[in-house]
């Protein structure tokens, strides 16, 4: 059979083990672009459409487990949007309704594009990626899963099953810059997660490095400068700008056909500043 339609995760892994070169087909929004352009050989396919378990999510008090087959449209639904707002915001910036209806979070992870919109959010949340393969289960931190541009730690025969993210009580946000408001690949993007309970700030960048980049220096600086009692930034606008500049210091952008490294570094500073200003109470100065 050239196309396998497993209905369970175990059957999907078995199909992949039987056909190690098979194309794993989730939403198809990346795979078909490559196939249509003649860039991908297709000799056999493992279609995940009927593996209903991958399309589910659940949560407890500490974390949300997101099935790899959830579409962007699923992620920006009301309930998930409330639990993981930055992920919903990121999902809503992906492509168009047509793309969001088909593309999946598992596909975003497997493609591992530096511009993948969910990746900075998953990085800022310290997400864990659950994999199942012929040798059983394993879990990797996002930073150990995405190894480079379009390169992951996925072994042959292994399937992405879920992304697990902690539930965080504070403000979270995703912003990106591109040439229009829809149907655009990020030139630069920022995910910001503020955790008032632990008094930490997490910030991750997309499209300005080979992988989603965390910004430890800027994060510590912001945590030290936020007034956690009042949820304000006593230093005002100057502090927000300083945060943007520190974030840009951690960017590793390159020139490519979409934009220059200099523009990307500038953009990431501006959107990081705006994220912080939106996250905290209005700043007077």
């Amino acid at each position, binding site marked *: 059979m050239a196309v396998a*339609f497993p209905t369970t995760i175990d059957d999907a892994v078995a199909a992949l083990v039987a056909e190690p070169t098979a194309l794993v087909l989730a939403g198809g929004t990346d795979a078909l672009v490559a196939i249509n352009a003649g860039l991908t050989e297709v000799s056999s396919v493992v279609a995940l459409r009927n593996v209903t378990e991958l399309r589910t999510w659940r949560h407890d008090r500490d974390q949300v487990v997101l099935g790899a087959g959830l579409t962007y*449209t699923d992620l920006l639904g009301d309930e998930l949007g409330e639990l993981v707002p930055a992920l919903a915001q990121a999902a809503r910036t992906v492509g168009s309704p047509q793309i969001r209806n088909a593309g999946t979070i598992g596909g975003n992870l497997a493609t591992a594009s530096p511009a993948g919109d969910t990746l900075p959010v998953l990085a800022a949340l310290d997400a864990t990626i659950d994999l199942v393969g012929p040798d059983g289960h394993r879990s990797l931190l996002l930073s150990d899963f995405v190894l480079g541009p379009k390169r992951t730690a996925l072994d042959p025969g292994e399937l992405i099953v879920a992304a697990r993210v902690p539930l965080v009580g504070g403000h979270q946000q995703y912003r990106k810059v591109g040439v229009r408001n829809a149907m655009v690949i990020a030139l630069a993007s920022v995910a910001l997660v503020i955790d008032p309970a632990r008094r930490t700030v997490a910030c991750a960048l997309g499209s300005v490095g080979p992988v989603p980049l965390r910004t430890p220096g800027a994060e510590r600086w912001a945590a030290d400068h936020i007034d956690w009692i009042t949820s304000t930034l006593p230093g005002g606008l100057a502090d927000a700008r300083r945060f943007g500049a520190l974030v840009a210091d951690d960017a590793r952008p390159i020139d490519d056909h979409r934009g220059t490294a200099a523009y990307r570094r500038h953009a990431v500073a501006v959107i990081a500043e705006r994220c912080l200003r939106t996250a905290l109470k209005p700043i007077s100065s």
Partner: protein
Amino acid sequence: MTGYALTVNGREHRVEEAWLGESLLHVLRERLDLPGAKSGCEQGECGSCSVMMDDVLVCSCLVLAAGATGARITTLEGLQPADRGAFSDVQQAFVDEGAVQCGFCTPGLVMAVHDLLARCPQPTGLEIREAISGNLCRCTGYGRIFAAVEVTVAARTGGRRR
């Protein structure tokens, strides 16, 4: 590969001796004689190939045809009334409001508008814009398309045109 079946507009079609990598768009147009979905960019950027798959709007150029067996697919042809030449209300509004110029994007836009109004019978201006944000039209400037959506909404809800 051996053949497979696709359910399009309520009818089962056999597809024989196709290349495994063919998109649903290609199969609809070249094998099933359903040219309503248009082939613009073949990378999901233009929306001209929009169809419904299991009641969800997708770009048929990004659907692997051989992976779509068992899904209910509806194309523009399936939205039209059975008598030949008759239009759906959205199509008629596009014609009446001058939302059709070269016409290449029209089938995809009509699919997107049908989908929007099925989910959201009285959309706001922003909801209309987001719903058709994946459908490129290079002729109309979109103003006539928004008007066609509003006319359809007014007609369906029994209201008068604003």
